[in-house]
């Protein structure tokens, strides 16, 4: 394929097409969009690593569950024949021995930490390379 023969004439012809210039304020628009992009990226940037968020959340939940199960002997060694009722009884007695609202608040806090950690970390703010 001979690509060179008419190249000069074709360029000459094509350069007569309407000159297509970008809008003169494009650089400022890009700069503005870039600043906005950066501030958004900062806003959604995780403040702590994902693994730390999950570890903290799971620790809180585990602590509450551990507390519930160790605060009543009937729960640790359940009576399998009446397992369900023993467990319910154990949890009930455990809950009655502490402030129920405190336990629920800590449990809710743990779940909130995990959910917010998941939401923050799943927010995509990186561009494809």
């Amino acid at each position: 394929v001979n690509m060179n023969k008419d190249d000069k004439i074709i360029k000459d012809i094509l350069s007569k097409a309407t000159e297509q210039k970008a809008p003169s304020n494009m650089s400022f628009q890009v700069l503005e969009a870039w600043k906005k992009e950066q501030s958004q990226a900062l806003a959604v940037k995780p403040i702590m690593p994902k693994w730390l968020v999950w570890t903290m959340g799971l620790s809180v939940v585990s602590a509450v569950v551990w507390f519930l199960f160790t605060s009543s002997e009937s729960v640790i060694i359940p009576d399998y024949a009446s397992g369900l009722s023993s467990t319910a009884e154990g949890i009930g007695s455990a809950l009655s021995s502490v402030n129920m609202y405190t336990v629920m608040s800590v449990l809710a806090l743990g779940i909130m930490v995990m959910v917010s950690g998941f939401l923050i970390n799943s927010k995509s703010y990186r561009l494809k390379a």
Partner: protein
Amino acid sequence: MGPNSDEELIAGIQANDDNAILRFVETYQDRVYHQALGMLGNTQDAEEASQDVFIKALKNMKLFEGRSKLSTWLYQIAYTTCLDVLKKRKRQPRETEIEDDSTSTWDSMNDGLKSLEQEDQRGIIDSALQRLDPKDSALVNLYHLQELSIKEVSEITNINPGAIKVRLLRARKKLAAYLERDLHQALAT
């Protein structure tokens, strides 16, 4: 005085210097916009795509290793960005069916165009370019107007050099057919 060379621009952008970012866009905006307009066919899409190209470039500037020219890298981003826009748009191909059997030489067509008013010349050439397939339009722009080598065009479009030559040859034939037809009509009136 702001940064001028590509190296200075890159260093300035990596340091988040506003002046370097402005200079970077000003240096390349016409070339990027021209390519986007050629591929997308309307000014609004071309403006939006051009902005996207620069934002992507700024975000990925740390990944730019300098193995190719900054302009080549930008053309590459522009090409893929425009292809993405076209995919989303799912527009019908712009190219209308025409026999690429032009009998005129480029030289004679150039002479014919010269005999017309400048505005008529522009109208005919613009119209012919707009009817090309977007990918072919990009190839014609990069090779014939920006005067990049086939190797550089291949890097930008990720099309192998042999296929680029074939596509360019076909695009030139189409372009010649469109020009010849419109030129005959213009000269006849």
